[in-house]
């Protein structure tokens, strides 16, 4: 039985509660703004539930601690913000290659380089089209505090179900705001599934290995094709998106994720006579190409709004296959658009 439990909570804290509720008992992190509330709160919560909290000496170490915890069969998580995620890419690639589950939260800030500490969506590429080698992460993009909790909770099940790292791609705004949410305290579906592949000591069996190094002729190619099958299954099964204010009369479609999707809902509310709908991809991988393609057929124009210079835009173009229909407006470097600003852009393009 699930019990309802409404509380006022900060986005970053909601991530912690979700991880604890999902049975995560290993956390490693390194200080970086705007996600510091996560390691801080974790350092208190993990000991309370008998889990492991480690402050790593760098993000390189954070992700490799998560790698090790996953090897041993634990539900493990790390969190960081953009520059720190760059450092983690090595370890994330190893986890994908070794098919290790784990959850990585990116509370994005402005870049490139040290950038700034304002909210941003400039890590879409490094989440959806990540580091070295042919691999994919499952990427979930929350757009409010409730989803910060829900998606983090669900990420652990997805990670175990597919033996694949899962990334929560959020931003400094969603990390810092406080909202009232329902802590659902559900039961995690895959929590008690036995991980036969985990290394726990070769009791009554041969020694097992966890590897991404596959040097024998054809071995790695075969492994990569196996990964492809898995990603295809994920694409078929796990696509998520939200349609808002879309009907047969919709003239203009906004495509936006995370914080910008939330702002776009306001834009639609203040749009008066303009018939605007919103398509919000929730899983950025798998990206809901077909679903977007269907809706795009019936609208006059598609507006892609992002807090970057146009990253998800690439995937929208793949889905829509008609670039002339697409207009892009982006705020890079920590810029956050207002609802009015987005509406003005639409008006300028359609009038």
């Amino acid at each position, binding site marked *: 039985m699930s019990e309802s439990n409404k509380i006022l909570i900060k986005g970053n804290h909601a991530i912690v509660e979700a991880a604890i509720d999902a049975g995560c*008992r*290993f956390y*490693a992190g390194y200080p970086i703004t705007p996600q510091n509330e996560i390691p801080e709160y974790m350092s208190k919560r993990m000991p309370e539930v008998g889990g*492991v909290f*480690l402050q*790593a*000496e*760098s993000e*390189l*170490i954070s992700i*490799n*601690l*998560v*790698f*090790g*915890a996953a*090897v*041993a*069969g*634990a539900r*493990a998580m790390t969190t960081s913000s953009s520059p720190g995620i760059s450092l983690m890419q*090595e*370890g994330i690639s*190893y986890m994908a290659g*070794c098919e290790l589950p784990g959850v990585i939260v990116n509370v994005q800030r402005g870049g490139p380089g040290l950038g700034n500490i304002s909210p941003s969506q400039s890590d879409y590429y490094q989440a959806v089209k990540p580091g070295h080698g042919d691999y994919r992460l499952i990427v979930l993009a929350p757009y409010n505090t409730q989803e910060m909790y829900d998606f983090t909770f669900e990420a652990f099940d997805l990670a175990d179900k597919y033996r694949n790292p899962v990334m929560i791609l959020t931003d400094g705004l969603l990390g810092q705001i406080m909202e009232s949410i329902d802590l659902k305290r559900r039961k995690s579906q895959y929590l008690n599934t036995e991980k036969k592949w985990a*290394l*726990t*000591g*070769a*009791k*009554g069996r*041969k*020694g*097992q*290995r*966890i*590897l*991404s*190094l596959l040097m024998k002729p054809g071995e790695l190619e075969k492994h990569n094709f196996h990964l492809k099958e898995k990603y295809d299954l994920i694409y078929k099964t796990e696509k998520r998106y939200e349609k808002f204010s879309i009907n047969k009369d919709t003239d203009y479609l906004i495509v936006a994720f995370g914080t910008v999707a939330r702002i776009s809902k306001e834009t639609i509310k203040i749009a008066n006579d303009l018939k605007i709908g919103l398509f919000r991809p929730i899983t950025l991988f798998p990206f809901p190409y077909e679903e977007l393609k269907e809706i795009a057929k019936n609208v006059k124009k598609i507006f892609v709004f992002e807090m970057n210079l146009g990253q998800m835009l690439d995937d929208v173009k793949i889905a829509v296959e008609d670039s002339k229909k697409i207009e892009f407006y982006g705020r890079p470097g920590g810029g956050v658009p207002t609802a009015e600003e987005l509406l003005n852009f639409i008006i300028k393009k359609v009038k």
Partner: protein
Amino acid sequence: MQEKLIYKKPNSITDVNFSYCPGCGHSTVHKIIGEIVDELNLREKIIGVAPVGCAVFAYDFWDFDVTEAAHGRTPAVATAIKRVLPDRVVFSYQGDGDLASIGMAEIIHTANRGENITVIFINNTNYGMTGGQLAPTTLLNQKTTTSPFGRDAKNYGYPIKMLELLAPLPGVKYLERVKVTDAASIIKAKNAIKKAFTYQIENVGFAMVEVLSGCPTNWRKEPVEANKWIDEEVSKYFPIMKIKDIK
């Protein structure tokens, strides 16, 4: 005629042929670890973390659980496994490039936290797997493929003594440097490595054994010559001794 078994392959060593070069120390240390795992009855509770480098294939030769780790991240991976499964025996097996160069932060902080793991550090003064480049442990004047005129301190700095570097850290409980150049030194090396594992089992804390190990191929020496060079030169700079033992 009565047969008496005086030597056999440890049960924890697989039937896969070692891929190491003739005269390489890795094979000897692998076998020592296999023997210790048998003797301490650890096969069902030990988890090894293999490095990037020549020993990257270590998992082919041991019949117990072994994971790979990214280059140098080996102690971090071992830390997490031990924290998740504190009643298992966890060790990292690392070369000098892995441990003393790219993995410097990992080894220092793992040691400083006093993680109750065992570290086996193979020092052959070069990057063996990639063809014999300069390592942090390369001796002064030693020629490698990236120090063709010999290591001079002005350009490359000095060879680093990892055990001496870690010794002052209070979390570190046992440090010993050994070699595997002849029967006597192999027995001593085994005793040291066994002690390092025993300390973990007894929850004493972080223990690390450095093994001076021959690399005849990249040293451009015959195996016998290579061992002689360890005995006469390498061990002069990296003295064969117990550096720390708090028990």
